[in-house]
């Protein structure tokens, strides 16, 4: 049979709940009343039960209305790629902050996001990137936040 998305998520979450219960057993018990493992154990159990319901719901004839699948208005093939692309760019940006510094990586990120994800022309992307990078950099420096400068500004 075909699993619904909710069931797959339910399985993952049930496993997570079981894992939490297992880990919380390893914490020492409190001398009086609850110890550090009490609430985690209860939460793990609750997660396990709730997630099991998600898995079991279709078998109980309750799948309707649980995950009303909405069809995307735009071409759905493209939409997935956009999200993946945006996520990769953001990850690359966060990675670059430590290496290139905040100002330079921000300019590159805004440019790349505009051009690659949204397929806009590069000019406004570059201008906005420079504007945002400079604005944020000076504002947060003024607030006393030591943003990574990168080699450009010698930091």
């Amino acid at each position, binding site marked *: 049979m075909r699993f619904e998305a909710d069931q797959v998520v339910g399985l993952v979450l049930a496993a997570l709940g079981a894992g939490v219960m297992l880990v919380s057993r390893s914490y020492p018990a*409190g001398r009086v*009343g609850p110890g550090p493992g009490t609430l985690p154990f209860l939460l793990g159990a609750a997660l396990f039960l709730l997630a099991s319901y998600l898995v079991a719901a279709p078998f109980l004839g309750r799948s309707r209305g649980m995950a009303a699948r909405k069809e995307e208005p735009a071409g759905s093939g493209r939409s997935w790629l956009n999200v993946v692309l945006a*996520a990769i760019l*953001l990850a690359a940006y966060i990675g670059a902050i430590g290496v290139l510094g905040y100002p330079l990586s921000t300019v590159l990120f805004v440019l790349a*996001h505009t051009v690659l994800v949204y397929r806009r022309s590069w000019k406004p*992307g570059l201008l906005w990137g420079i504007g945002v990078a400079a604005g944020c950099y000076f504002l947060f420096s003024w607030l006393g936040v030591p943003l990574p400068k990168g080699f450009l500004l010698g930091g």
Partner: protein
Amino acid sequence: MDALASLGQGFSLALQPINLLYCALGVTVGTLIGVLPGVGPASGIALLIPFTFGHDPVSALILLCGIYYGAMYGGSTTSILANIPGESSSVMTAVEGFEMTKQGRGGAALGIAAFGSFIAGTLGVVALMAFAPSLARVAISFGEPEYFAVMVAAFCLVSALTGKSVVKGLISTVLGLLLSLVGIDPVSGIARFTAGRIELLDGISFLVVAIGIFAVAEIFENVETLLSPVPRFTRMSLRQMLPNLEEWRRSIWPILRGTVIGFFTGVLPGAGATIASFLSYAVEKSVSRHPERFGKGAIEGVAGPESANNAASAGSLVPMLTLGIPGSGSTAIMMGALMMLNVTPGPLLFREHPQVFWGLVASMYIGNVMLLALNLPLIGAFVQVLRIPYSTLSAVILALSCVGVFSLNYSLSDVWLMFIFGLVGYAMRKLEFPMPPMVLALVLGTRTERSLRLSLLLSDGSPAIFFTRPIPLAIFVAVALYFLYRGWRSLRARPVQA
């Protein structure tokens, strides 16, 4: 008159130039956020929290609340002019307001929305002023078992009301509570769920999660469709925005009813502005002598819901300030911000930091006047921000999210964590798990565990303590009855659905 004297002090605080500036900044940014589709108030508040660090808590709260109720004003503008609700609480406004625009009465719709918001916002603050201190006086006698019960009730209500599925809401709550446990346990000193990583010993900051699952995930979701609407607007003069006598006559009762509905809906955890506006619309349609006008540009359908969502934002501050229990994503984020500034909302706030409450109340009066003054003549200017293409705006928001999270601890690992929560938030949106319960649970998690532990210490470990004291017992029974009712109703509805 004790309250009047306190209010006077509040005004002297709120009228300080720096606080006036924060109020103006808050309501302006709030209006912009309200106008922009795809940027919600929760994201906006979370993004601006880093700017409040090192400031006075009163100023910080004035700024953040200004964004909150400012967004309720701004949300109506694009709904009426272009049928694009900036916020979910303006959906009903779009139904009637856009019809009015098509009939050439868009100006009046904008006007009544602004006046209704002003009246409801101001009356909402009056109600806040009247109810909050007395509720705090009751709450101050609460012991730990009572607190635990109230928090459990808040979690259950928020889980049940914010999403389509109660089970998913509860899962979201449980995940949020688990996240709040990450780090060193304050009682035993044991590191929990840190996977051996030093960065996690201090716990996961709610702001990292909030910016991730609200701001970043919002952008991932919008990127899917590459949506960037640039609607056309006709310029409108101030004159056109003044409703005529007939329109006033039809609107005044919906505004007042919307205020009452909105305020009390806002007080309930989990209900909030969106539900308030839907309720108000439904009420107006049912009491109207001309229900056939609804859907065809009935001004009552703009006046009621717009008033309701503004009153709701005042109402939702009541449980947050008096009990320390926020009832929505936005108020949970505000409460987290206050806690970062070493002010813990709750009944003690009124004794220990009365200036926070009265300064906020006074600033809300001022803010509502500012919003009216801003909104009527400057609507055209605000609408211009829609010319910024979403392609650029989204990149800017992402860059701001990164720098905001970085400024918390000057740590890039926080930014990575934010990225992960951005993906989690995107998955939650796609799978229809509601996000407010998770943020609420994360903000309240530590307090919940402390209440549970202290309660059970009082009773030598017996959970009977929750069922032998009257208030917790009543609360748990009420929650159980509510869930039984929900269960019974969905069982009954089943044959119809299938």
